[in-house]
């Protein structure tokens, strides 16, 4: 008999999928806004370091970038976890994946935010 038939199911249900869908849509929205804002803030593109620093002085940019990092990292990690789920990982492996992915996500987001804030700080001091 297939053990999965009466085996435990994680109760994650709709919410994780919903977050994935929501972050996916928000990433699209931000990218779209990004192109529009870029058109006004940096119409000639960002070709040097100095231009990038200057670009970050507009407060919309770092806020947008931070949100983008949060959404894109969550979306891709939930998605990747979904792909792994399609391979029927064992219960223990899935638990490990949950922890590792949470850690990786947290590190990636903290790193991204730190990077953005560093650029803002450097731009302000130069």
């Amino acid at each position: 008999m297939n053990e999965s038939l009466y085996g435990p199911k994680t109760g994650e249900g709709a919410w994780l999928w919903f977050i994935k869908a929501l972050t996916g849509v928000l990433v699209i929205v931000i990218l779209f806004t990004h192109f529009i804002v870029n058109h006004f803030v940096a119409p000639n593109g960002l070709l040097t370091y100095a231009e990038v620093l200057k670009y970050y002085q507009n407060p919309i940019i770092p806020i947008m970038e931070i949100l983008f990092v949060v959404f894109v990292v969550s979306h891709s990690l939930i998605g990747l976890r979904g792909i792994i789920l399609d391979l029927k990982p064992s219960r223990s492996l899935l638990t490990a994946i949950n922890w590792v992915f949470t850690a990786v996500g947290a590190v990636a987001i903290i790193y991204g935010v730190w990077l953005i804030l560093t650029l803002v700080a450097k731009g302000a001091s130069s």
Partner: protein
Amino acid sequence: MSDITREAPITRAAKWFDPRSRTINMVGFILNRITALGLTLYLCMHLIVLSQLAQGPGAFDTFLANIHNPIFTFLEVLVVTAGFYHGLNGIRIVLISFGVGVRYQQALLISVLVITVVVSAVFAVHMFSF
């Protein structure tokens, strides 16, 4: 169903990417999965590369000069194409998951594919003509 669990994960995963005897809907799924994996890889690389920004002007400007060649331009076109497809198809999946246009999902998919091809072609022409 016990037969499947005896197969190695890689053998099972390979079945996702087999479009033989399948319909265009399967192609939609395959592309979605490939672009998902590709974009995740790109995201990792992107985050690592951007650490150069924190190191100061020298490293970053050298880096920008280095990537200004056709291979990187091509990769950039690829990323934009992948992102465009994944995004549009994502919107389609969200729509049909909320019960909007499920019966027209195949038409939606074909539209997604056509729009992706057109947009990436325009983008490629734009990128390579500089």
